[in-house]
Every structure is written in C-alpha cells, then in structure tokens.
C-alpha cells in the first residue's frame, strides 16, 4: 500500500483510539465499557453458559447452516445489494484522496486494509462466542478459519458491488462487460431457488417426523446443490476440521479462495473508475451526496421525487409535521425493487408448493408461516432496522432545537414516526396471516382473540422498544449509530453489543408492569366468567396493559425531553 495511505490508516486508528480512551473520563462511558467488559468476561469465563451454536458447530448440520448463511449473504449481495460501490469513502477521503495522484487500485487496497480492523475484531468476538462449539481446534486455528471466512465475504461483497455499479451505471454495455459473473450468479440463484422450493414439501414432511436435519443434508449433498455449494463448503471446512491435520488440509483451499478474491477486487479497477467517473460527471451532486453520510439520497435525487403518501395540512398540531417528515423520508428511501423481489419470491414459493401438494389448507398454513416469521422478526428486530426517528435526526440537532416545540413533544413525535411505520407493516402482515388462517383447517392458535390482542400489543411493544432505542441515542449519542452510515471499528462493535444488551434489559423492565397488570386483569376476567385462563381473557386485558405501558412511556418521554434540551452537541458526530 502507498506510504501516505499507510500513514493515514495508522494515525487515524491511533488517534481514534486515543479519543475513545479520553472519553472514558466521563463516568457514563466508563460505566458502559465496564458493563461491556463484564459481558465479554461472562462469555469468556462462564463454562456453564451454553454456546449459541453448542452441539451444532461440529456437526454436518452446523456446517450446513454456515454454508447456507454464507450462500444467502453472498447471493443477496448480488441480487438485492446496492448499486453503488461497497467501498464507503468519508468526506475527507473523497476531497483529499480522489484528486491525489493515486491509482484507483491503491484506494481499493486502502479500503480493504481499513476493513481489516473490523474483520479482526469480528474474528475475536466470534472466536469467543463459538469457543464451546464442540470443536477441538486451538484458538488460533479457529481465529484463522474465521478470518478467512469474514475476509472472503467482505471481499466478495465489495467485488459484487463493483460489478453491479459498473453494470448499472453503464446500462447494456456494463451488463455485457460483466456478463460472466452476472450469468453465473443468476443461474446459481435460480437453480438453488428452484431446487429448494421443490424440496419444501418433502423437507417439511421430514421435519414433522423429526428428520429435518437428515433431509436437508440429503438435499445439499445431491446434485446440483452439492456442486453449487462446493466453494462455500471449502470456505467453512477449516472451521469444522476435527484435527489439526484436517485443518491444515482444509485451510489451504479456503485461503486460496480468499486470495483469489483479492486480485478480483483490486483489479476491478475499471469498474470502480467508471463509477467514480460517472459521479465526477455530476460533480456537484456527487460531492454533496458524498458529503452527506446518508448516501441513499443520491439514487432518489436522480429520479423523479415520489409524491408524499399524505398531504400535510397547514394547520394542526406541529408534532404531526415531524411525523409526516419522518414517514415521508422513510418511504422515499424504501427500495421498491427489494419489495417487488420479495413479493415475487413469495408467489413463486406459493405456486411451487401448491403444484406439489395441491391443498389450499397446506398452502394457507405455509402462507401463515411466511407472514408470521417476518412479523415476529419485525417485532424483535424492527426497532433496530427502521430508524425514522432521533437516530436519524440527532445529526440535525441544531435544527430540531430551534423549533418552537417542547423537547418532550419532539422526542414523542420522533418515536411515533417509527412506531407508525413499524405498526403499519406489522398490521399488514397480521391481516395477511389472519386472512390465510381462514383457509387453514389446522390453525395452531385461536385467530380472533390473537388478532385482537396483537392489534393492541404491537403498537405498545413498538412504542416501548423505540422509546428505549431513542432514549439510548439521546443519552449515549456516542454509543449509538446515528444516520444511515455504518460506524466501523472496535468501539462500534462493542457499542452494538452493549446497546442491544442494555436496550433488551430496559425494554423487558419496561414491559414488566404492563404484563403483570394485563395478566392480573385477564385472571380476574376468567375468574368472573368462571372459566380457565384463555386467550379471550386477554382481549380486555390488553388495552389496560397498554394504558399502563403508555403511562410509563409518558413519564420517560417527559424526562427524555429534558435530556433533549441538554444533549451535548459535541457528542453528536456522523458515523464512519
């Protein structure tokens, strides 16, 4: 790597670390670090605690899971990934490095080297997390195996994004230039998709008999999946080697696979240059977009601006304006192609299953599952992914603070923005699942009370978890990712772990009282009706529990409103 870039890399990392250490003088950050250390210490030294993948990492099933996860990650990078290079340059890098007499390949190498900081820390975390996975390999062998997997995945993601960038920015000419990788990926995804879809009924039948693992193993060891997944097996094989000798045999092909990616990425210079040249042709727009950590605006800015979903009346409560702004921003940033692909995928799976089983009830049952899984995911992970609230707007704190609104009103409106979006998505999935349940003769739960309870519980749960997430952003802005950019590095990784852990604990604590109240009310209702406690008893209990929850949130938001007025601007810094 170029000497100047090496200097930049080293001094940036060193100064960043110094800054992070200096921040530990503040008690709240010191406390957070101590909590993090305690968490990792528990993972490291508590031999009683089961490993997340205990019992599976050494088995064929564990290997299958790793292979499948890597395949899906890589395939989704090609199919659903961004059309811009995955190499994210900061404002300073664009302004100072792009005009410098550096080869594009040098810039790519610089970014790849920079990414190694994150990769190495991820390796450390995963080695700790998987240390009781049943493997007999020494620490350093597992570390090298994981490093190969993570580095290869990173390099592949960058390479794929460069190919996509080139293909998209140069239309048919770009597609022709990158025809070989595009055809290989498209064919692979189609074959895998079709094979898996056709196998769903038989795998499902095997799962009912408790033989799902064997059925999946048979599926992946038969052609054509075995051939397609071969490079992925190669990549994960060292991690599952049962002896040092086997590891040595397995690590060489895996390393070779990773090494092959490096020249592919660094020599995709032409595609990278094209992407940069294209951006340079639209200099002002590209520079403005690059300056902005929220890079999604570039794609939107290039096309027609979609109309708002609803008009903002000139008069009314001003907090609605903030909700309107945030919902509009979120819906405009949505990638409709991703949604369309998901809907198409569901339709293809549905058609294939129906053609195999010819039973509407079976199809409805699978449909319910396909709605229920994302619904549950949205409840658990949605508040982390949908961030149309203070986690975006804190970067414009000056603006927010200058508005003639109480801090608590602004905080409540910001929280409500994401809550509205999440609840709308969840209601849609709930409505679909409930509609499909009408065709399902073996529905696992009584539908009517479940839907009624969910209608109340979902917005309440969203409000609780979003209040926690926004509170964390407000109280610990240096520890929460703000904006769309992805922070990298040791601190970011530690911060994520801590933020998730603390948020989970606080969310559970906030839910405790409402749940207790709701359960007591439901018990009372059952006793009054002289019946045993069932789902119907929770129908009147759910709104009462929700009222308790919103009472709690009202107090918390009042408090956060005061914190909003006093948040230290110096801690609000763009990610990256």
């Amino acid at each position, binding site marked *: 790597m170029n000497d100047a870039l090496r200097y930049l890399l080293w001094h940036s990392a060193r100064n960043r670390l110094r800054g992070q250490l200096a921040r530990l003088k503040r008690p709240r950050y010191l406390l957070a670090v101590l909590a993090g250390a305690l968490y990792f210490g528990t993972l490291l030294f508590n031999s009683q605690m089961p490993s997340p993948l205990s019992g599976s990492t050494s088995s064929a099933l564990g290997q299958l899971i790793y292979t499948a996860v890597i395949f899906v990650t890589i395939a989704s990078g090609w199919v659903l990934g961004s059309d811009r290079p995955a190499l994210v340059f900061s404002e300073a890098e664009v302004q100072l490095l792009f005009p410098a007499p550096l080869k594009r390949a040098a810039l790519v190498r610089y970014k790849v080297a920079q990414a190694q900081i994150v990769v190495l820390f991820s390796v450390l975390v995963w080695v700790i997390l998987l240390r009781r996975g049943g493997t007999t390999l020494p620490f350093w062998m597992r570390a090298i195996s994981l490093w190969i997997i993570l580095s290869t995945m990173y390099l592949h993601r960058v390479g794929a994004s460069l190919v996509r960038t080139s293909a998209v920015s140069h239309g048919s000419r770009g597609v022709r230039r990158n025809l070989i990788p595009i055809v290989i990926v498209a064919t692979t995804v189609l074959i895998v998709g079709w094979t898996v879809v056709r196998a769903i009924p038989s795998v499902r039948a095997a799962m009912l008999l408790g033989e799902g693992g064997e059925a999946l193993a048979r599926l992946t060891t038969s052609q054509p999946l075995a051939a397609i997944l071969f490079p992925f097996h190669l990549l994960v094989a060292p991690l599952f080697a049962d002896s040092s000798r086997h590891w040595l045999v397995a690590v060489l092909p895996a390393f070779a696979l990773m090494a092959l990616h490096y020249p592919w990425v660094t020599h995709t210079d032409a595609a990278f240059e094209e992407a940069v040249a294209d951006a340079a042709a639209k200099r002002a727009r590209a520079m*403005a977009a690059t300056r902005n950590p929220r890079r999604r*605006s570039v794609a939107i800015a290039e096309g027609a601006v979609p109309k708002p979903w609803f008009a903002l009346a000139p*008069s009314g409560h*001003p907090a609605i304006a903030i909700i309107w*702004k945030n919902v*509009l921003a979120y819906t405009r940033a949505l990638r409709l192609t991703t949604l369309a692909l998901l809907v198409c995928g569901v339709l293809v799976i549905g058609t294939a299953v129906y053609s195999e089983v010819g039973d509407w009830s079976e199809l409805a049952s699978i449909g319910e599952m396909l709605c229920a899984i994302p619904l549950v995911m949205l409840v658990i992970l949605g508040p982390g992914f949908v961030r149309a609230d203070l986690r975006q707007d804190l970067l*414009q704190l000056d603006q927010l*603070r*200058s508005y*003639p609104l109480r801090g608590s009103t602004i905080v409540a409106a910001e929280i409500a923005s994401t809550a509205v979006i999440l609840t709308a998505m969840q209601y849609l999935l709930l409505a679909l699942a409930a509609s499909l349940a009408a065709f399902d003769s073996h529905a696992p739960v009584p539908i009517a009370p479940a839907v009624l309870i969910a209608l109340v519980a979902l917005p309440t749960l969203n409000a609780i978890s979003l209040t926690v997430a926004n509170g964390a952003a407000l109280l610990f802005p240096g520890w929460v990712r703000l904006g769309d950019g992805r922070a990298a590095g040791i601190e970011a990784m530690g911060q994520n772990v801590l933020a998730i852990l603390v948020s989970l604990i606080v969310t559970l604590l906030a839910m405790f009282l409402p749940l207790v109240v709701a359960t007591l009310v439901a018990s009372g209702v059952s006793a009054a009706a002289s019946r045993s406690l069932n789902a119907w008893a929770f129908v009147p209990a759910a709104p009462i529990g929700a009222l308790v929850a919103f009472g709690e949130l009202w107090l918390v938001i009042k408090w956060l409103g005061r914190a909003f007025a006093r948040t230290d601007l110096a801690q609000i810094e763009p990610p990256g």
Partner: protein
Amino acid sequence: MIDVERLTKSYGDFEAVRGLTFTVAPGEVLGLVGPNGAGKTTTLRSIAGIIVPTSGTVRVGGFDIATSPERAKALLAFIPDEPQLFEHLTVEEHLRFIGRLYGVADAPARIEPLLIEMELLEKRGALPATLSRGMRQKLAIACGLLHAPSALLLDEPLTGLDPAGMRRMKSTIAARARAGAAVVLSSHLLHLVEELCTRLLVMQRGRVIAIGTLAEIVAERPDLSGRALEDVFLALIDEGERDDSRRAPA
C-alpha cells in the same frame, strides 16, 4: 426584542463566551464580528436556544429562552452558516413542514412569493441533494423567513451565494429590519457589516471588546478616527490580544 444578559458558555475549563451583555431593538441590525473562535456562533446558538448557556439569560420578545423556550423560539429564526436540510423533503415540502411547525396558517400563500424571492421556484420539487451550495443556503434562509420572525439570527448569511444572490440577500435582510425585525448577523465580511448593520459588537475570545455604532466605537478611540472598519477591527483585535497577554499568568 433580544436581550442578552451576562451570557456565559463554558466547555469544561474553556469559556467560549464570557459574560456577554447586549440588546437588539426592533428594526436594528447588530453585526457580530470577531476572529475565528471568538464565540460568535456560540452566542447565536445560545440565543436560538440550541445550546444551553452555562449562566446568564437570553430573552426574545420578553420570553426567557430557558423558561419559555417555545414562545421565544416561535418569534425567532436561526439560519446557520452550514445549511442543515432534510434530504428526503423537496424544497416546497421543507417550507410546508416549517409552516406547520410554526403554525403559519397561510403558509401555502406565503410559499410561492418566498420561492420567487429566493429564486427557487423552478426547484420547488427538487431534493436538497440536487441543489447547489448557494441554493441550499437560500432554502435554509427561506425556511427561516417563512414565519416572518421578529428576531432573525444569521450566521454568515452570504456564504455560498453568487453576487446577485448576495445583493438580494442584503436587501432581504434590510427589508426585514425595516419591517421591525431585530437582526443579529455574524460575518467575516466587514463590508457587509458596514453596509447593513446599525451597530457592531466586536468579540474576541468570548468577550466583548467593543460595542456600539462605528462612530461610537471610534469616538472612544480617537487614534482610529477616519479609518475604515477593517482598520478599526484589526486595531481592536490587536489591542485585545495585548490585553489577554497582559492578563495571562506568567
């Protein structure tokens, strides 16, 4: 309209603003001048209620920014030097949003004339990412002017504007002052300050080193009589530096 009394803002041991006191009457334009790091932006942000002063009070239209922030903020507009815009709102949507926030019932009727004034009419459907630096600045200014504020805080208002835009902006500021707004503007462009401001406040290292009309300031320093604002400014700063050196512990 704007009353600042013993305003102090500290960051740890560092005092960014030290005991600042001044008032700005309706129709008056106060120019905040000083070298980089003098505390001009901190002062404007404190008045706007963006940062909380360490001590002292700020009143806008009689409302204390600390105890009645909503009422005080409803009267003022703060236009920062680096425009902060929402990337997913178009130019017109920004104005509609601000109109609703400030309760401007006739916002739809005000938007078009404002867009014409700021030469943004053709860009009304554009997102900020597609606007030039100057246009973004104009949009930020339009957002500040929509609710006809009684107090206007401008931080380097001409940054990024072309010559025609600068001229228009100067006449806009003057017109708002004539209409009764109290204006505080910070700028390094001394000719702008000289042209627009009725009074000057010269800051250095967080404290006031001179305040008043140019004539009043010069009257206190006969040696500066007949000199241009630039010379007066540099002489005051130089003197301030010497004062600080004398005060600094050996």
